[in-house]
């Protein structure tokens, strides 16, 4: 059909043809094309930026999920670890990590010798190739199992940050020449250990479960405390912000009279949603810590502060989803004799639930990535102890949070922490992705269209 009409163009008589666009139509079409192009460019720029961000984070951070370890046979010399000889843990605890360090060093040298590797490195340089964390782990293990004294046990120890970096390509022979913390000879020894099968790189569970470690032990630093702290804070936010936010929205939307006062409240809620988060931190410090006397660095305070921050988001989302429930539903319920409260709880709220849940999850995701307010309430800290279980008062124990841990890692002097920081960002992004996917899933699954 179209071909036939195309073959019989109407020409002449100044009116132009439908098939041959006149100048103004061409201009209009070109304008539309240009506009589409602008949109496309904008989308592409966004995607490009995202791709850049993700590549830089992934390329820097994925290596944090792998860790180099060394197998060492450690003879636990009873005379050195239990000078009193009575296997009393209290007595044995007097031998500090400074007493265990030479033991591990000698064990490492022994392992190297028995593997038939020759090296001219002095003992101190060899000891520097493993993490100080391993000494502490060894001590904790011996104190927990005094029976192993006198035996020789195989121990998997963490390689030092520089050795670990060598197998991840961060440290090379060139940089080792200039680096005061590692020498090319140590790298050669590490390669020899790898050939002997004593040194291997594997998946790094410790990065997810272990607590933070000090500046000198980047290889041991993990996110355990931060993940728990973030989780506790989200619990508090969910437990407080959801009921308060939903109650406030239902009242404002369904019961409150429309007057200047409720208008004022509405404006204020919208304004609160745009208040910089650090302001909530100042408020939290003044009210929760200085006035109410809650402990510093505790997830409960962080959770309360983030609740204040998340409330406006939840209230706005809840009100929007309540508004989108058609008035006919309310009229029908009221017409059948339901009270206003029954109308709300039996009919309106269930229909608005997907929107409320989506708003809550997005609010939680926003709170999960927040750092600034936590700065003022003492959560930007070096915390190594896991907080207790929530029913044991764990909400009051010191903890950090995931974004805070990223910030902490970026401030450390050892270059290995760059990788840890990016690794922590990846973990944070995965959590955010899961939460946002859950929001989309809930919306798709329960959404009603009219």
């Amino acid at each position, binding site marked *: 059909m179209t071909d036939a009409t195309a073959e019989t163009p109407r020409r002449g008589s100044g009116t132009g043809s439908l098939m041959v666009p006149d100048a103004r139509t061409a201009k209009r079409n070109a304008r539309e094309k240009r506009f589409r192009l602008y949109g496309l460019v904008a989308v592409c720029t966004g995607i490009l930026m995202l791709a850049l961000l993700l590549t830089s984070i992934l390329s820097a951070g994925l290596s944090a999920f792998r860790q180099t370890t060394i197998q060492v046979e450690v003879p636990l010399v009873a005379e050195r670890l239990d000078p009193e000889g009575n296997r009393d843990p209290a007595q044995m605890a007097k031998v500090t990590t400074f007493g265990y360090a030479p033991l591990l060093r000698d064990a490492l040298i022994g392992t190297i010798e028995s593997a038939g590797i020759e090296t001219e490195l002095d003992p101190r340089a060899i000891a520097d190739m493993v993490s100080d964390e391993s000494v502490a782990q060894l001590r904790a293990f011996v104190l927990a199992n005094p029976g192993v004294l006198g035996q020789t046990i195989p121990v998997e120890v963490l390689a030092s940050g520089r050795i670990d970096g060598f197998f991840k390509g961060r440290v090379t022979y060139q940089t080792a020449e200039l680096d005061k913390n590692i020498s090319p000879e140590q790298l050669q020894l590490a390669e020899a250990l790898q050939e002997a099968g004593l040194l291997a790189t594997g998946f790094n569970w410790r990065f997810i479960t272990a607590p933070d470690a000090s500046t000198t032990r980047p290889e041991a630093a993990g996110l355990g405390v931060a993940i728990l702290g973030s989780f506790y804070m989200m619990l508090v936010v969910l437990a407080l912000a959801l009921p308060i936010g939903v109650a406030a929205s239902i009242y404002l939307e369904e019961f409150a009279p429309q007057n200047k006062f409720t208008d004022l409240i509405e404006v204020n809620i919208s304004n609160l949603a745009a208040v910089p988060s650090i302001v909530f931190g100042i408020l939290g410090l003044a009210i929760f810590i200085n006035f109410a006397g809650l402990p510093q660095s505790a997830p409960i305070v962080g959770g309360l502060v983030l609740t204040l921050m998340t409330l406006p988001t939840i209230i706005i989302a809840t009100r929007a989803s309540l508004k989108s429930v058609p008035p006919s539903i309310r009229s029908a319920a009221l017409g059948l004799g339901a009270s206003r409260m029954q109308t709300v709880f039996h009919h309106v709220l269930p229909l608005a639930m997907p929107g409320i849940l989506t708003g809550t999850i997005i609010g939680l995701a926003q709170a999960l990535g927040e750092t600034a307010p936590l700065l003022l309430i*003492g959560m930007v*800290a*070096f915390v*190594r*102890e896991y907080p207790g279980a929530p029913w044991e008062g764990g909400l009051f124990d010191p903890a950090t949070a995931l974004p805070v841990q990223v910030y902490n890692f970026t401030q450390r002097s050892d270059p290995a922490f760059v990788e840890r920081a990016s690794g922590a960002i990846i973990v944070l992004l995965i959590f955010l992705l899961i939460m946002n996917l859950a929001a989309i899933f809930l919306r798709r699954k329960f959404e009603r269209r009219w």
Partner: protein
Amino acid sequence: MSLTKTAVSTIAVAAVCATAAAARDQVQVAGSSTVLPYASIVAEAFGENFDFPTPVVESGGSSAGLRRFCEGVGENTIDIANASRAIRSGEIEACAANGVTDIIEVRIGYDGIVFASQQDGPAFTAFTPSDLFNALGAQVLVDGALVENPYTQWSEFNADLPAVDIAAFIPGTNHGTREVFEEQVIAAGCEATGAFQAMMDAGMSEDDAEDACLAVRSDGAAVDITGDYTETLARIDSNPDGVGVFGLSFYENNTDVLKVATMNGVSPSVDTIASGEYPVSRPLFFYIKGAHIGVIPGLKEYASFFVSNDIAGPWGPLADYGLVSDPELEAVQANVENEVNMTE
């Protein structure tokens, strides 16, 4: 209405929680970001070797730490403030006003301040305080006359320095390091170049001249870094001609990317700083709240452990990380042991 409701309910929840909160059983520390790495190394080792929980260490700067330290006595205030400078008399007064009267001062050692640039950058290998004053002072002496700093390149006042634009990344005024940088480098350079004398001759009082000496040019050649040394490092990374101010320990951890300059011909190291040859260094401190000893478990043990020979001695982990061990460590240990308060 919803706001009041929110506020009231959160406060109510908070109050209920506060009564349920158990007594604090871990030491809390805050303060200087320069002391933070040392404090975290000690806290970690303390947690490993003692039955007490690992202390919680926050940073935030010397001034912020001391302000929080002086907020009062009680479980929701910190026990120890780390500082990269000595406490000021104003701060002691503020402390006393809030009931913090027993303060134990502990000097943990010395930290050197070094000037470093990109490993492959121009040859910034030797500085004197005069060079840095000429490069960074607001007013300098040119041909015997005091003028607004006219220099744009290092080679303009010292032919031995590279002919590149001046770009120095110096610690911001929120850092204790800035004070040391001003007093030991800029002021020294001001006197050495004769600018100080010229200012006095121009009729300034001694105090005014000292202040004028410390003024840093504000035309963009000197950039204040309010963040940490990692920020300075990032700035140097992106600017090959940049010169940055770092702590010795930070430099020692990044020798593969940074090249350090000598000061008055002395290269910075733990040895030259300990002997006093390297001129730019400062003591590091922490302050213990006397009223919390015996109340917060592990507080005194942590302090004693911090200054013990195993930790703060010349072969301890702190010295490994770049701290210059205190030659009078024994006196410091005795001070902590006897809980000697500051006298002022």
